[in-house]
């Protein structure tokens, strides 16, 4: 039997999300996170459509999975040991940071989300194969972290430096030039022309 790993994973993902959705939607044996009222076919409650949608998704996901058993061969890209280790490490580090920040009282704003994401993604980027993914997304996380306390300019600088590291063709001079150019451009477009409400320079010291 030739297995299509892509289809197996895709089907599995769909089924998992469907089960998760059904669980949150509630109504089955009293289980459920949010317990939406089902209602009747005539007067549908908030839980009716989700129930329909997730059952359909469950069915389709299961079919994708079954078809994948014979649909191949279509293997996933090969992961090295380093890829697996960094992925596991990144998840663990992310959860740990999340917990630590929660204990430190950072649990009612997005610093917690951003901090955990940033560190986890940087750990992920240790492996060369994950580097484009890890650094591109980390640059986004650092932008979110820096924007409100440190202002637009520094957020752009951080984003540029981190994302540029994802491409081997960059050198310090090209990164610096690009960063300055983008800062000026964004200041002109977003602050001068469009006037979006965002601090330009650090606000936490002032």
């Amino acid at each position: 039997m030739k297995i299509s790993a892509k289809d197996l994973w895709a089907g599995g993902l769909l089924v998992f999300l469907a089960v998760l959705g059904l669980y949150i939607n509630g109504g089955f044996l009293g289980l459920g996170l949010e317990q939406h009222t089902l209602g009747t076919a005539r007067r549908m409650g908030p839980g009716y459509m989700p129930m329909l949608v997730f059952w359909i998704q469950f069915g389709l996901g299961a079919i994708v999975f079954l078809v994948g058993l014979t649909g191949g061969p279509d293997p996933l890209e090969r992961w090295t040991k380093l890829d697996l280790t960094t992925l596991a490490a990144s998840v663990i580090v992310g959860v740990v940071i999340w917990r630590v920040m929660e204990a430190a009282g950072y649990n009612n704003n997005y610093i917690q989300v951003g901090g955990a994401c940033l560190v986890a993604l940087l750990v992920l980027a240790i492996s060369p194969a994950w580097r484009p993914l890890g650094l591109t997304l980390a640059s986004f996380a650092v932008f979110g972290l820096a924007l409100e306390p440190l202002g637009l300019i520094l957020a752009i600088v951080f984003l540029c430096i981190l994302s540029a590291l994802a491409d081997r063709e960059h050198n310090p001079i090209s990164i610096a030039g690009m960063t300055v150019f983008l800062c000026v451009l964004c200041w002109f477009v977003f602050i001068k022309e469009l006037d979006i409400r965002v601090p330009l320079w650090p606000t936490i010291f002032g």
Partner: protein
Amino acid sequence: MELLLANLAHGFGVALTLDNLLFALLGALIGTAIGVLPGIGPVATISLLLPITFGQPATTAIIMLAGIYYGAQYGGSTTAILLNLPGEVSSVVTTLEGYKMARNGRAGAALTIAAVGSFFAGSVATVLVAASGPALTQVALSFGPADYFSLMLLGLIISAVLAQGSILKSIAMVVLGVALGLVGTDVQTGQQRFTFGVPELSDGLGFVSIAMGIFGIGEIILNLERPEARSVMSGKVGSLMLTGAEFRRSIPSVLRGTVVGSVLGILPGGGASLAAFGSYMMERKLSKYRHEFGNGAIEGVAGPESANNAAAQTSFIPLLTLGIPANAVMALMVGALIIQGIQPGPRMVEAQPDLFWGLICSMWIGNLMLLVINLPLIGMWVKLLQVPYKYLYPSILVFCAIGVYSLNNSVFDVYQTLFFGILGYIFSKLRMEAAPLLIGFVLGPMMEEHLRRAMLLSRGDPIVFVERPISATLLALGAIVLAAMLLPGLRAGKDKALAE
């Protein structure tokens, strides 16, 4: 007829105001630029610019966004011909004959016929939109909730069937999109669904974040992973003039491409890329010079390039008359309209005549501008092609990040985009098409509303969907489409048409 002329006169009045002209030009310029640049498409760009359009009047905003979409069809051919690299998905087939023509020293001729063909097709398609719009609107006004539900279901089925790759997975992606659309406040009871107590989610997941995360950021990561996909331009453009023989040979292809493109553009899930493929297949079968295909036949440029631009215009028809987006770009237009407080649908033509007629007239003006932008100024775009990707992607990221933030002035949207970037990456690795997901996400909430209303009116009896003739016809069409795709012959044909 007189009414149509009066309406068009009104439309030109709107489109020719200084602001609207400027933004049509801006849209056309941006569209050409992103069309020329490989690796950034209209979906990402339009979602990027959505926040910027808040401050503008609705008509101006839509005129600019539309310009980006059809402008990209013009720009995409430049890269395809000069670099053998599609600037847009819709110009993939142009690489086949266009690059061969460039190797034969006829790059200029290929660029000219691409632009002229696009302009002709765009003009015809614009007239088609103007003529069919009001008539279709009348039909749409007699639709009940059950009919709407069935129509959207048909749209979802077709969009899944026409997407690339496995139909089964595409349908599953549509359903997943509908599921994502459930997040937020239930319209009828006000109950929070799937929000996990996060106040930012009570308005639902961010449409821009989804589009930008999956299409913008996901795309960048994939481009960085395979650096060999980038290439360098070689050769000169040469004379832009067509020879008499080339001109005569192109005429039938342009005409055929216009027809194919106009028809395929209206189909839900269709749009520019499908039209270009369809036209290329047709030219290879019908052209008198089909034996020259593979060695730089001008028909292989003229047909698809006309078709993709015709489709870019006619794909506005379902949106403007029924309020149903035919493809991912149109889904973004729905988003733009709703942000402006306009509910897309059959009442839009009458309630927003400025928007409807102004947009149609600006499309024609925009096509005229694009002809000028693309031909005499071709040197400028060739320069743009020499900007290395290493400078491009951080710029895109910066604009993305500021763009999502400025939606609600909230960092939440930045992280939401990051999350969908990861999801988009997983999707592309598992070969799950993201475009059907986006359409499902947009149509899902509307479908739920119509379903609940229809069931309430029918006292809970689902027979209403087959009792009403319109709804029954639409459902039957959907069933036929699905059944047809189960036939092995047709499926093989579709795979061949969509394979690069």
